[in-house]
């Protein structure tokens, strides 16, 4: 019953040995250059592990390969055939399939319908093939179940089945294990190895270094839009990979960092905020203390549970267990409005989704957290107070606006971020949680945000800095913790913080 997979193997072995070649691909969004000349190859039966931090450009590259984005420069060849421009339908037709991290299923359709939709062949034939494939890989799903009733692993399996049914020659798996349980990961690896044996090329995007050595034949590391390291997995050690993830001038920078260092004297400080066995959806048993005037770095990869931790503190989701205490007062399970009043504010990770009022003006954006405060008037909006507050933050942060009535959505990313940070500070919080405060903003704005954070510190505000940018954590933090799979994986004192130590813990490598 291995006929189908064998067919795929035939297809894969016909023609050139290289299934997918990427040459000199560049891509910029506005001024932000995301890909700066990428070269990659995937051959028959190769499993290429692609690793890199957030913002390294992995997903942009994959979208170009899938034909969702067009590259600015560079070329793509599939099985030796050079593609001038690629559309999703053309990529699919040429045997490239991506299993996205967040499956894109039709929730109201059955598993069978979800897999078979978009094919031209007869349903009966396809269905037979599908059953064969499931037999081959040994994973069985009830085909009549609605997609909305599937677990995330099962949804991924449906996506994988789609790709296999298409007789894809190259399968892209985008962090396939991020939501899988241990057993499911084992089964997935079995499938990957089986496919590899059939000559299918696989791009395996992951955040977990351990998986690279378990499953991949080749490895490539991306950082800041370039491939910093690639080769056969057997030629590398974990330490070498971790090093590849770090910026080249790291030692230099850490030197520089040491000069500015001012160590807090913890013996004189009382924690302003404390978490005790704090558990919620996406994180478990978190114990933390934050002191006034301290910047606590919270490192980890996206999906580690850091954002869930922060939003739960901020009253956006249910607390399952444990306590959150602010200045001696129990703030567990309070609503966002109450938490704000008690003195915590939060700068969301996803600015567009949760932070910015895109079609509102700068003033309305800056003061939105203050609407519960009498400072802005009891009933009527105190325009003068609004103007003062807005101007204060525009001036303090050197935000480039044409006026307070400029539409926030028309600002650059950096200036938008300054507006959202300004809002978080407008309530004079005792604890500010910054979630990826410099993501997607340019270097100048980044510098401005850093000086804002330093200023907060000098004013005695406690700062919880969530970042996937290890460099940022190293540069700013007085103390750092790493979250890995929803739990605190390590706590580092000022002198222990280094990109290498943080990176290793974030990727689940025990030292």
């Amino acid at each position, binding site marked *: 019953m291995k006929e189908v997979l064998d067919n795929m193997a035939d297809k894969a072995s016909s023609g050139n040995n290289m299934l997918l070649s990427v040459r000199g691909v560049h891509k910029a969004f506005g001024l932000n250059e995301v890909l700066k000349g990428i070269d990659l190859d995937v051959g028959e039966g190769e499993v290429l592990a692609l690793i890199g931090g957030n913002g390294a450009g992995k997903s942009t590259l994959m979208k170009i390969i899938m034909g969702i984005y067009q590259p600015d420069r560079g070329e793509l060849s599939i099985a030796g055939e050079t593609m001038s421009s690629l559309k999703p339908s053309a990529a699919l037709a040429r045997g490239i399939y991506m299993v996205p991290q967040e499956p894109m299923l039709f929730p109201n359709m059955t598993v069978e319908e979800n897999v078979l939709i978009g094919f031209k062949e007869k349903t009966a034939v396809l269905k037979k093939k599908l059953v064969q494939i499931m037999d081959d890989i040994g994973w069985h799903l009830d085909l009549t179940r609605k997609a909305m009733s599937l677990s995330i692993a099962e949804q991924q399996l449906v996506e994988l089945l789609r790709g296999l049914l298409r007789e894809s020659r190259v399968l892209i798996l985008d962090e396939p294990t991020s939501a899988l349980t241990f057993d499911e990961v084992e089964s997935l690896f079995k499938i990957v190895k089986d496919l590899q044996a059939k000559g299918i090329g696989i791009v395996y995007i992951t955040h977990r270094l351990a998986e690279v050595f378990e499953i991949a034949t080749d490895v490539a590391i991306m950082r800041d839009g370039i491939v910093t390291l690639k080769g056969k997995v057997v030629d590398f050690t974990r330490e070498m990979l971790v090093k590849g993830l770090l910026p080249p001038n790291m030692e230099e920078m850490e030197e520089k960092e040491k000069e500015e260092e001012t160590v807090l004297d913890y013996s004189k400080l009382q924690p302003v905020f404390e978490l005790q066995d704090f558990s919620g959806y996406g994180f478990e048993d978190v114990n933390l203390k934050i002191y006034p005037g301290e910047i606590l770095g919270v490192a980890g990869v996206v999906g580690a549970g850091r954002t869930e931790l922060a939003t739960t503190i901020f009253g956006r989701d249910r607390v399952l267990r444990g306590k959150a205490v602010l200045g001696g007062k129990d703030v567990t399970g309070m609503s966002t409005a109450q938490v704000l009043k008690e003195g915590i504010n939060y700068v969301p990770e996803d600015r567009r989704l949760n*932070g910015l*009022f895109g079609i509102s003006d700068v003033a309305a954006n800056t003061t*939105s957290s203050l*609407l519960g405060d009498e400072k802005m008037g009891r009933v*009527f*909006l105190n325009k003068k107070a609004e103007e003062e507050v807005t101007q204060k933050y525009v001036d303090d942060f050197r935000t480039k606006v044409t006026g307070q009535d400029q539409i926030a959505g028309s600002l650059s990313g950096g200036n938008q971020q300054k507006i959202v940070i300004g*809002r978080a500070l407008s309530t004079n919080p005792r604890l500010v949680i910054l979630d990826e405060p410099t993501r997607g903003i340019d270097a100048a704005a980044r510098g401005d945000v850093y000086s804002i954070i330093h200023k907060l510190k000098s004013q005695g505000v406690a700062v919880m800095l969530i970042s996937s940018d290890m460099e940022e954590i190293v540069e700013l933090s007085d103390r750092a913790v790493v979250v890995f799979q929803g739990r605190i994986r390590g706590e580092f004192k000022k002198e222990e913080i280094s990109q290498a130590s943080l990176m290793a813990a974030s990727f689940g490598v025990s030292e």
Partner: protein
Amino acid sequence: MKKALKRWETVLFCILILEFVIFASANSKFLMPRVLFGSINDIIPTCIISLFVTFVMITGGIDIQAGSIVGLTSIVLGVSWQDWGLNIWAASLLAILVAALAGSISGYFVAYCGVQPMVVTLGGSFLFSGIALLVSNLSATESYKGISGFPESFVSLSKKKLFGVIPNQVIIFLALAVIAYILLHKTKYGRKIFLVGVNQNAAEYSGINSRLVILSTYVLSSISASIAGIVLTSYLGTAKSDIGATLTMPIITAVVLGGTLSTGGKGSALGTSLAAVVIGMLRFGLPLCFKVSQQYLDIPVGLILLIVVIGRSIANNPKVVAKFAKGRM
């Protein structure tokens, strides 16, 4: 945002002036206050209600039950006055309270249960017009006749004129327009309405109780519908359960034409007022000055709506035009 809105309001204002110039030059009777204000009764309910449906639409919702609330108000007012012996003003107050309750029921389902506003208010339009009919059956008067014979003080609500020229209804509309303007653009509450409509998540992250804000807009629009119902009952001198049945489409048209974004976050009291008057004048001027039959008037109103939305769509997305030109979609 303000600048763009101002521009749109200017456009509406120019259209209004243009209407006046064209209609007045076609028929000088158009400008006679008696004639002009005599027309107002037909459009005043739309004007009043669309002001507050604007609130609902700014939050990203929609209210198609307001028309049925007008009928419900009218009949509650009539029955409680005639058959239950309430004082006419107490009856009016009762009618407003009933409307507020109706609005809060729909608002609750939209805001707290997450049901689509369109479906909830569609159900509401059936429910409240149905209840209105049942209430009318409580009366000794047969429902098709309507309840009439209201006291002079109540009827004069719509018959009296300020300085002998401006009818009370116009005063009521202007007063409500000012209230809507202040609420929406000058208070903290109004700011919350906008913020919730622009980005409900971000509003929640700013500590705004977005659900309560959304619920409140449905209550307000229902109250405005009940005020329109009272005015209409006073003018007609008759309380009937179905007097608001045809209002839904004109209301939504006025709100959209007034510059309110149907996806929420944008809109203004002034824009809606102007749009409602523009539509009203069109409906009044065309028959008077160009002998256009009353029944044809849906065409120009519909066309204006279509032209505005198509124009906005093209202005916002020039690519669509290019695609069209290429002949592939």
